[in-house]
């Protein structure tokens, strides 16, 4: 068995790293899988209303890219469904019978999505324009439904409900109570808004780069306008939902709250640490600004509420990665705040003139916002997954108890890491190839006039 460089990392670390890599990779495609269908529908719908061929060109281009991303995303999602059993079989033996319902319903949503993706991608010349547009609607709905069902299962891992353990066996399972646990609403909406936002900023970024390279035409302007309209509506909502999710964590995952907020010792009337840069092995943050009483107010609606410190939890029950989790959390919040500011700026400027701002600085900010929005999604998941450690099901089941007893995880981790490197390269190559093709159905003069 080939395990050379990885022989140094433990069985558990190899398994966790493999599923962590898989989730981070899949998340990128899942986010676009949720967001792109809506953007395609908007663009194609605008074409049906206005007859403007630029809209149709955008819809067709996005659907080509979506076809590639859907194929890779469906494949990387398949990897995860297998890995649940291959890497964490003892966790699945425990949890499968409790959270099977959302997974089965996700199966239905994925089915509908895959069927209509076939119709939509291959049906441009087989359906009337209106029927074709309609066939995109089930894709957009089922993509959101898939994300919803999967995230309810994750919410259950964070706030487990709907079962009892009697003599080490799972009993009294209530599948609906497990699915609609206290975290379902905030976690699912945070994910869906996050996906829409990242897609919107991602699209805007692609076309901002095009404009920076001198391609300032209606095709690029329309793409940025439609993407940043969506962003401007959703970014403030995401802030509100994020706040609600923070309260959910505060009430149900006290150790996680302490880690993400950097609360080491229990505080009464806890202040909110803003901008503190955590350093491992050092208590207290560098460059920290503490706003008195704000954490208690935000998390518990009470400025004098006590917030339990990380050091009050037994060593075995707290994460060893607290500084990194805090760093991920504040980076996510920082990016989110920046994205809200950017979309508001864009719309304030656009109200005065006819087109949005097209100066280099704004375009460069929009170009940076795309990757940043995807990074924020990845960081949010790091907070959710690392913040829950050492538990795979918070307070009930340890990650170390879920890992497989089968050997060879060093080899599988190596194989899958290489696979992801290859898939990333292939996907980038393929999307760039689509982007390089001339825009079909649009002559250059038409572009300039529009």
């Amino acid at each position: 068995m080939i395990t050379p460089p990885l022989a140094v990392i433990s069985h558990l670390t190899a398994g966790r790293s493999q599923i962590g890599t898989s989730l981070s990779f899949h998340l990128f495609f899942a986010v676009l899988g949720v967001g792109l269908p809506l953007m395609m529908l908007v663009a194609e719908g605008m074409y049906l209303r206005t007859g403007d061929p630029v809209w149709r060109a955008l819809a067709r281009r996005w659907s080509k890219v979506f076809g590639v991303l859907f194929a890779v995303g469906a494949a990387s999602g398949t990897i995860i469904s297998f890995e649940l059993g291959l890497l964490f079989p003892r966790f699945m033996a425990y949890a499968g019978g409790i959270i099977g319902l959302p997974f089965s319903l996700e199966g239905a949503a994925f089915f509908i999505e895959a069927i209509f993706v076939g119709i939509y991608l291959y049906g441009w010349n087989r359906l009337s324009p209106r029927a074709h547009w309609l066939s995109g609607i089930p894709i957009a709905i089922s993509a959101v439904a898939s994300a919803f069902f999967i995230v309810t299962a994750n919410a259950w891992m964070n706030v487990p409900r709907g079962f009892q353990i009697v003599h080490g066996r799972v009993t009294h399972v209530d599948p609906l109570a497990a699915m609609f646990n206290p975290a379902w609403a905030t976690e699912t909406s945070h994910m869906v808004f996050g996906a829409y936002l990242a897609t919107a900023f991602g699209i805007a970024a692609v076309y901002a780069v095009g404009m920076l390279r001198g391609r300032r035409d209606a095709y690029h302007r329309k793409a940025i306008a439609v993407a940043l309209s969506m962003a401007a509506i959703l970014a403030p909502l995401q802030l509100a939902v994020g706040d609600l999710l923070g309260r959910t964590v505060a009430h149900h995952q006290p150790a996680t709250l302490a880690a993400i907020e950097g609360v080491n010792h229990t505080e009464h009337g806890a202040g909110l640490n803003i901008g503190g840069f955590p350093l491992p092995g050092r208590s207290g943050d560098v460059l920290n600004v503490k706003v008195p009483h704000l954490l208690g107010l935000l998390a518990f609606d009470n400025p004098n509420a006590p917030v339990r410190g990380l050091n009050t939890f037994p060593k075995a029950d707290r994460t060893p990665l607290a500084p990194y989790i805090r760093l991920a959390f504040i980076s996510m919040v920082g990016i989110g705040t920046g994205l809200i500011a950017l979309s508001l700026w864009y719309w304030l400027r656009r109200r005065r003139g006819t087109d949005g701002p097209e100066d280099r600085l704004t375009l460069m900010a929009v170009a940076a916002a795309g990757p940043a929005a995807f990074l924020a999604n990845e960081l949010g998941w790091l907070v959710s997954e690392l913040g829950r450690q050492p538990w795979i099901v918070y307070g009930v089941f340890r990650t170390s108890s879920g890992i497989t007893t089968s050997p060879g995880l060093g080899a599988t981790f190596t194989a899958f890491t290489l696979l992801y490197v290859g898939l990333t390269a292939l996907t980038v190559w393929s999307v760039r190839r689509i982007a390089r093709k001339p825009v079909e159905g649009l002559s250059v003069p038409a572009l300039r006039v529009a």
Partner: protein
Amino acid sequence: MSLPALIAMLLGISLTSYALFAGADFGGGILDLLAGNRDKDRQAIAATIGPVWEANHVWLIFSITLLFSAFPAAFSALGTALLAPFTVALLAIVLRSVALGLRASPRGPGRSEVLLSRLFGAASLVAPFAFGVVAGGLAKVSTSARLGAAPVPQVPWTSPFALTIGALAAALCTQLASCFVALRLIGSDEPRLAEQFRRRGLQAGTCVLLLGLAAPTIAAAAAPGVWHRLIGAALPLLVAGVAASALSLLALSRRRYLLARGACLLTGAAVLWGWFASQAPHLIGSRLTIHTAAATHAALMSIAIAGGVVLLLVLPAMYLLFAVFARPELEVTE
């Protein structure tokens, strides 16, 4: 019928749909590998599986979720015992999907297209083989008290019997794909191209028949547990499978493609349900059955209802998909 049996039946239907329809898509990859530099063959294969392969793939996801929701202990044991072959199958499925999704056009102008085609073909050969090997190994371990009594039994997926089943799965996929492509070519008035796929179908079908006869023979010699079950509960299905396989060959030789496809689908279904019958009610080993590995009653009930909802939603949508692509293209007005 008990609730676990009902869900096992649903799982059986889901696995059968995956094996037959996604199996035909894998077979398309194998045919693509065999097509050499005949780009017309390659285009015919791509046109047949293009719109449907993603949807067919979802049967696998659905089967996995059914398995871990309803029989979590068995899912856990399967994942532990079969880490290696499942990892191989998984890598193959992923590479197949990505190669097929990224290949812009089956006609290869550049080297990249050729490379993606080869990857698509090779991965399409490995995936059904790996699944067949797993099925053969499970049939063997679940019918042997000596092998199957451990909580996580060793599954002999490299035994001659298992390897034969792996080869049978790959051959069956190839024959299925040949029938699907040939039938489509006849429908779009290209009988000359269809001849090529008829020949492939006859070759693959001959392999199916021979391997289908070899498997029980090997079982009789080397896996007595499987042999006894095969000539017991599974005997009618075994006979039906051999008969359907012979019929599909006869139909192909007479260019009756619709009949050939039907008989080929029937062969695949008979092989699968023969396997289920040979090891029912065992899921893996002799200790984990659909009853001992089952989740709680409430969980099973929710899965049964969700499973019913899935079928109610999916079957009409699936029909729509196949109906849209059975229609001719519209005139392009641009």
